[in-house]
């Protein structure tokens, strides 16, 4: 269990995530293929890599009385951005932070089955299903904070329903999960409360807030959702996206925003784009600016060796040539890209 004491000495080595943590912290965060690997190997092992260590060192060194710092992980497809993000989230939660993890912001701008006009603001649209799913996962992740944080404001949902000031956050979340129709507004309320309360210092029951968003470029791109008259919906017109953008603005203190760019789920962007300027667009870049970019690259030789040895150790590579001759072939075929390597080894 090497939680807070990871340093450069441990670069390239694997550490195991305890199974309890896997269920609580990451109900929805890990990449699909990684989840399958966890199920196969019966344990979750994460490699300690340079980008994640860099991020953790920045988080340790940051000053939390100043406005929130924004970090952006970017890199080629399959180079390990989401995994680095999950590594950082694990660190944050072991340090006692409140983690607001949005596993894939792209899911909120496409394939929406139900779109309701928002009750709060007439020109906006709600997405009840996605919002309630997210609230459920949020509840699993941050159980212990739900009773500690109290609401500062009274929220009225309908003529009869309202949440009083001073009631715990858990009640609000439960209400959002059960009342699916107003779940998007609940999400907005939750975000606002956390934003206001994270600014307090640690002594007076404050906490540090980590906002982790995967696929942040979807917030400023286009959507595939259409209104009833077949005109496209702009991202600002979705309540969830609107509230998320408010979170990313660095006008609150006491936490950090960690974001990942993702080309895989993004809409209308060329597959060769991976730099922040290309994927975020003008608007996104201006809103995210200033941020700290953290590049994520393919495995170095040492990391590749470590990954290969891990697979051999788990008896994942069954081919008799895997020890020596096949290694060079695999290096060539995958060019040390983590996801390609994983897919390649899947059938060896």
């Amino acid at each position: 269990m090497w939680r807070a004491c990871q340093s450069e000495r441990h670069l390239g080595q694997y550490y195991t995530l305890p199974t309890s943590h896997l269920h609580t912290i990451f109900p929805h965060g890990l990449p699909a293929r990684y989840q399958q690997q966890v199920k196969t190997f019966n344990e979750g092992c994460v490699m300690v890599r340079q980008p994640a260590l860099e991020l953790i060192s920045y988080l340790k060194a940051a000053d939390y009385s100043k406005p929130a710092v924004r970090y952006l992980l970017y890199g080629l497809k399959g180079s390990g951005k989401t995994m680095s993000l999950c590594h950082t989230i694990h660190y944050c939660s072991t340090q006692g932070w409140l983690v607001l993890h949005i596993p894939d912001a792209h899911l909120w701008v496409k394939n929406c089955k139900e779109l309701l006009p928002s009750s709060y603001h007439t020109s906006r649209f709600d997405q009840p299903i996605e919002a309630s799913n997210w609230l459920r996962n949020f509840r699993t992740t941050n159980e212990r904070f739900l009773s500690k944080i109290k609401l500062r404001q009274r929220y009225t949902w309908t003529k009869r329903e309202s949440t009083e000031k001073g009631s715990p956050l858990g009640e609000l979340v439960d209400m959002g999960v059960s009342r699916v129709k107003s779940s998007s507004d609940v999400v907005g309320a939750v975000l606002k409360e956390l934003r206001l309360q994270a600014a307090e210092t640690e002594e007076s029951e404050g906490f540090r807030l980590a906002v982790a968003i995967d696929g942040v470029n979807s917030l400023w791109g286009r959507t595939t959702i259409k209104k009833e008259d077949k005109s496209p919906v702009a991202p600002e017109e979705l309540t969830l996206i609107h509230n998320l953008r408010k979170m990313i603005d660095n006008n609150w203190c006491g936490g950090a925003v960690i974001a990942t760019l993702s080309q895989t789920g993004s809409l209308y962007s060329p597959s060769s784009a991976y730099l922040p300027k290309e994927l975020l667009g003008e608007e996104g870049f201006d809103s995210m600016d200033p941020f700290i970019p953290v590049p994520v690259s393919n495995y170095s030789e040492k990391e590749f060796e470590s990954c290969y040895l891990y697979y051999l150790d788990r008896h994942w590579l069954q081919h008799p040539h895997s020890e020596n001759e096949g290694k060079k072939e695999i290096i060539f075929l995958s060019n040390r890209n983590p996801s390609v390597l994983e897919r390649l080894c899947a059938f060896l």
Partner: protein
Amino acid sequence: MGEDPETFTQQDIDRSIAYLFPSGLFDKRARPLMKHPDEIFPKQQAVQWGADGRPFHFLFYTGKQSYYSLMHDTVAKVLAAEKQQVLLLSEGPVPQDTKPISLVGSRWLLKEELEELLVETISDHDYARFIQLMERLLSLPNCLSEKDFVQRYRKQLEIQSSKQQVAPLQYDENGVAYSTADGRRKTATCTVLLRDCGSGSISINGRDYLHYFPVLQDREQLMFPFHFLDMLGRFDGQCTVGGGGRSSQAGALRLAISRAMLSFLSEGQVESMRQAGLLTPDPRVKERKKPGQEGARRKFTWKKR
């Protein structure tokens, strides 16, 4: 025209005809040509009988006179060789210092080539009998005297590897060895510059090969020449490719890489590459669509009525 009539070869004649009568026809055999009449007109049998109607050859009435006369001569040689062998054995067991005729580097004439030689048609059965008889002749120990006779009916094969041209290695400013080559497959063309650096990185049209070829099959095609010669991490490649589709671009690159690697290799390795098929350009191209059919081979749906 300024040409020297004394040293005017057939090649020069072909060149001049192609210049004087330019033709846009696709089939080379349909274009105008000027060659010796023997090469243009097929050989015909001369008249086989005289003024009195009596045939010259005694085997004329068999129908295939040249074939049967050839068989007749061969059998006579076989009998002569056997008789000589019997004579030698009766004189006492003599140590065998007669070597058999060397058959390496040549093959029997094909049926079509034999027909051309004899100027008459033979059946498959006849051809098989002829080859059987020649093999029998060769199996006898005293056949060295018939060497010329046998060689007339065998064709020499050229050694394929001597045809391979290997470009010499070039060196750039830093002393690093490099070589360039081209490759083509089915409308895809490419050029490759291989450097003997030590990293295994290959860039295609400025992009990484992992991004240019997301499919595993194409990357395996690229890997084949390196893997065959066990030089996987040694070379650094810069390629440009255009035309064709995904698979043909990969095939063209593979050919170009193999050709570029030739300058770094020894003779034996070049020969093994050639035998593996890495240096052969793939001749398959898209077949033309014919009129009256839907595609190259597919016919229109046949309706009975």
